[in-house]
């Protein structure tokens, strides 16, 4: 612990900082800007130079584009990815480019990581700006940000290295949810359960989220809140997350390890990621006067006797041993909600109850839980049974011959070939796809400025050196990416294969001509 271990941390190749442009504008107070810096043990002068460069560029580019300033600096050996999380609160990630280390990045994927950090942070603590206003010294914010981001990054730890989404993850989409396809009858049962859940709590305006395995079945939350809660749920609450302990973000790891092997909380993982789990002594959170909850900590959730998931992250209610119920903050309504998660076999139900509707704290929450059990347990059994019956397993959404990624931007939903299948692709194919996606990203952001309310149709077909077809098509808010290896050499064949896929699995959305 402490300085020694901090130096050996797996920070090489990556820096991440969060700073506030409204702070530290006086000479000599520059340090005040810094809200977070990783690695924390870099000298302040280095930290300030990274932030200074970023700030300079932002100020410069704002002259030409006040609404959207700098997005990216591509240097020879580094990429600087910018993300304006809240007005004047910036997150910048600096990654090293290196061909040998497979450090080939898709910038939008990295930006999605920044976005997710911020969204999740907001989900638990509310906007950063509000926190800064509450405690103008910035100490409160730093005390929260540091452990939070470190806990978050620990999910990307592979061995001693932080492995960010690279070209190998080109057939995955960050910041989207994956949905379970259900039949009509099951869907009706699910929706019926949703009504019972939300009405059973007796309070007004409850929300719910239902997952089966790691897939979303139903949500009544707004799209943004759904994405955040979904991300948290599959990382920390789903049956897999509960059983596999401190594994990494499952979206990265999913499929590469057999899901049913229960990996207990091993000591090895803990010791390697020492820096992440035990905060260094010189970290900004030194000041212990802030009581900081760390919702992203591993192995802190478990299933209680009544089927509800419990955690001690939120501490215990004063004068009792009962763990406090977690609360989260909704982006859409700005309301604080109690989070009650219930698990039955592969089914995870999350019920959000407004804090304002429960007057007597934990007692009220446990009453709500009791009511949920009373009203809904039969329906839960039924839904679980129906969904399990229709569940096609890990590879349910595999389409043989295709490696694909389908994104619905309007609904923030994506579906992709199972990761285990994607790993069979050649490196060339993946690199080509990653490159292609960057092109599409660029085209998309361009058309967003040109014509905000109209989606552009786009189609790109590439024949890669290893004779694979790499195809992308976007139409009216939907994107479909596809790699066809060992395919016929004619373009006609490739486009036929594409059409066939679109007709069968996308309701013909991509076969317009």
């Amino acid at each position: 612990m402490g300085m020694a271990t901090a130096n050996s941390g797996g920070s090489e190749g990556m820096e991440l900082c969060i700073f506030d442009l409204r702070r530290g504008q006086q000479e000599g107070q520059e340090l005040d800007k810094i809200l977070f810096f990783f690695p924390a043990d870099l000298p302040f002068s280095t930290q300030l130079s990274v932030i200074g460069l970023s700030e300079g560029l932002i100020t410069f580019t704002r002259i030409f584009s006040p609404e959207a300033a700098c997005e990216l600096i591509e240097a020879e050996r580094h990429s600087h990815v910018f993300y304006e999380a809240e007005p004047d609160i910036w997150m910048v990630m600096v990654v090293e480019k290196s061909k040998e280390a497979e450090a080939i990045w898709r910038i939008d994927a990295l930006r999605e990581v920044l976005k997710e950090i911020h969204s999740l942070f907001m989900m638990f603590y509310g906007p950063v700006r509000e926190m800064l206003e509450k405690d103008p010294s910035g100490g409160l914010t730093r005390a929260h940000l540091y452990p939070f981001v470190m806990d978050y990054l620990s999910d990307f730890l592979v061995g001693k290295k932080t492995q960010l989404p690279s070209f190998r993850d080109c057939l995955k989409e960050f910041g989207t949810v994956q949905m379970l396809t259900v039949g009509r009858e099951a869907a009706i049962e699910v929706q019926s359960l949703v009504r019972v859940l939300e009405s059973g709590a007796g309070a007004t305006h409850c929300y719910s989220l239902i997952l089966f395995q790691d897939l979303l079945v139903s949500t009544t939350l707004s799209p943004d809140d759904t994405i955040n809660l979904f991300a948290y749920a599959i990382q920390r609450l789903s049956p897999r997350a509960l059983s596999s302990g401190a594994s990494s973000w499952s979206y990265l790891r999913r499929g590469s390890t057999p899901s049913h092997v229960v990996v207990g909380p091993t000591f090895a993982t803990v010791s390697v990621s020492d820096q992440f789990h035990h905060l260094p002594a010189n970290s900004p959170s030194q000041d212990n006067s802030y009581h900081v909850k760390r919702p992203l900590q591993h192995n802190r959730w478990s299933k209680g006797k009544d089927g509800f998931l419990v955690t001690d992250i939120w501490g215990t209610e004063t004068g009792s041993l009962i763990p406090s119920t977690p609360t989260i903050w909704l982006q859409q309504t700005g309301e604080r909600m109690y989070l009650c998660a219930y698990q039955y076999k592969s089914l995870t139900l999350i019920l959000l109850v407004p804090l304002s509707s429960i007057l007597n704290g934990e007692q009220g929450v446990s009453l709500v839980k009791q009511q949920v059990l009373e009203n809904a347990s039969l329906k839960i059994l039924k839904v679980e049974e129906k969904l399990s019956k229709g569940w096609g397993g890990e590879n349910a959404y595999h389409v043989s011959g295709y490696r694909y990624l389908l994104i619905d931007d309007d609904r923030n939903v994506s579906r992709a070939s199972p990761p285990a299948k994607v790993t069979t692709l050649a490196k060339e194919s993946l690199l080509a796809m990653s490159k292609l996606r960057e092109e599409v990203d660029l085209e998309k952001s361009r058309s967003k400025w040109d014509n905000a309310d109209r989606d552009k149709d786009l189609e790109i077909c590439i024949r890669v050196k290893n004779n694979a077809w790499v195809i992308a098509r976007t139409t009216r808010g939907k994107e479909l990416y596809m790699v066809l290896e060992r395919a016929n050499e004619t373009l006609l064949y490739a486009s036929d294969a594409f059409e066939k896929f679109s007709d069968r699995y996308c309701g013909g959305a991509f076969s317009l001509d």
Partner: protein
Amino acid sequence: MSGKASSSQLSVSSSGSGGLSHVYIQHPPLRCNVPRSRGLFYDDGNKLFIIQVFSWKTAPFDPLVAPTSDLISEGPILSIRYSLDAKIIAIQRTSQEIQFFHRETGQNFCHKCNPESESILGFFWTDCPLCHFVLVKNSGLDLLACDAESKSLQLVKTRKLNVSWYLYTHESRMVLLASGMQCNTFSGFQFSSAGIVCLPKFEMIMAKSEANSKPVLAAEDVYIATIYGRIYCLQIDRVAMLLHSYRFYQDAVVQQGSLPIYSSQIAVSVVDNVLLIHQVDAKVVILYDIFANSRAPISAPLPLLLRGLPRSNSFTSRSTAKDSESPEANISDSESKIYGDDWTFMIPDLACDVSNKLLWKINLDLEAISACSSEVPSVLEFLQHRKLEASKAKQLCLAITHNLILERRPVLMVAKAVEVLMVSYSQALKTGSYLKGIKDTEVNAQFKSLKTNPKVNKEKLSGGAERSSTEVHISSSQSQQLGPANSPLNASVSERQESQLTSPAISPDEMYSFVFAPVEEEMVGDSSYLVAIILEFLRSASSVKKKVKPNINVLAIQLLARNERYAELSLFIINKVLEPSKKVAMQLLESGGQNSQVRKLGLDMLRQLSFHHDYVLQLVQDGYYLEALRYARKHKVVTVRPSLFLEAALASNDSQLLAAVLRFFSDFTPGFKTTSDCHTYNRILYEMNSAVAV
């Protein structure tokens, strides 16, 4: 009480017609006043009430029916029955002789039995193909057939048995012959049109009052009851104070459990498949619905009510005596006496006041029954089984469901209620009793009248103490409007409706028009409750594999969109909870005005349902001209006019787009180049381009 008046107070806690009761007899009765007459017979085969030579039709029941009379020779009448084709009258003259009269020709002949050894206990006509006439003697059964001219009877078969007494109902076509010391051993035969079924012998259990006593079962203590087409035998055990029930199967008789009785004198009626047990001493009726598994009574024991008497009358004066003015003079006290000493009950639903020669028909008060229970799903189930007053039961069901939702009762309860209705509907479809194209207008009109008094509903919503008083006020005012003279007329009206509607089953479409649509109009506040109900409705419909019409889906979309619950809406559409249809797609497009994602769902639905023309139009409307053109070419949509695209392209003020559209039509639409559109827009394009050049 008319259908209209009653339906407007459907869920009022007690029907406002004078007193609490679930069963009533309607004044006036059928008055069978024949001077100096003796003997009173009921021919259940023809449903005729007979006094000597006069006979009254009792089905359909009309108190004003005129008797018909036949000319028969003088002599004692022990029993009398008309043949099923009503051509012959059989009259038992003595215990040895039966006389037959031809009604048309006036001819007659006699049938006698062996005077020494046998005596006739009774007889009946059957529609069994083997025999037309069955004679029950103490020595067994004689099955007889008429010859072609109906001039004499031939013996077809005899069954030798010792018979103490017998029981027969035409409804069940079943004769039970009692034998043995205690008369509790029974042989049963069914003479149905399919042939004769011989039941195994069985014994009825009887409790003993003392160790050695051997009670004898009397004929009056056994009833044959036909309920839901099943045949039951009910036996009164006076010692145990129980009513035992047995059900007859083709090859077995199975005891079905017992019901408690609370009176030494018991009578049984069956009205519309509901078992009525009259506790004569206590002057109350207990109702059982044997269909349901439970042996619990439908409701608390309540007296039989005499309806339609003027208020001043002693019986009804309890409630509203003060407002009544002129009592009708001709109502005698005797007529208002319920459960008199010489009342006899005739299966299934008639009661006869022998001494006054009055015949009453027993009716169920569906409103009162449905109002007395808070267990709405079971009430609905009960109502759904009613065939006699199907239209009233149907209205009641609709109104109950309607109010249930308006009152925002728990979703689970409403879900159960809706499920009951859907299951019943699917069963009605299976059995074919749900007539398609029943006069919707009529139901509609009646339902409208139910809603004409919005006060009722509002009061219910607000709740509180004053609510009941208001309702009582409404109901009493209505019953005042209806004079007693009104009643017979209304009774005949409802009779007419019964003939049209054979089942109270409610189709999903009717659920929409009479429940959801009106509820949606009247409901205030958050509509997510209604969405939950609609969802439960869809669930029940899908569980019985019935499709719902798009209008209910459209309603669900409107409600969700109004509450801006777009996440759920898109889940509903994507998972096809709301089934795709053109109407649904159009509603999505309309609701999508506020949410582009919803609009896209509508577009996708149009495309997937292959409504190419509409899809192209919508694309144009959204400004996707080239996409629309490509789509039109691919799917050969020729119904969209080129000028529509051209105008749109021109309006966009984009010369490139206009050029592309023009080029498309020139290339792919034969003959386009010669149209005036082509020339006009070519010129416009030229001008646009030259303007840019300048």
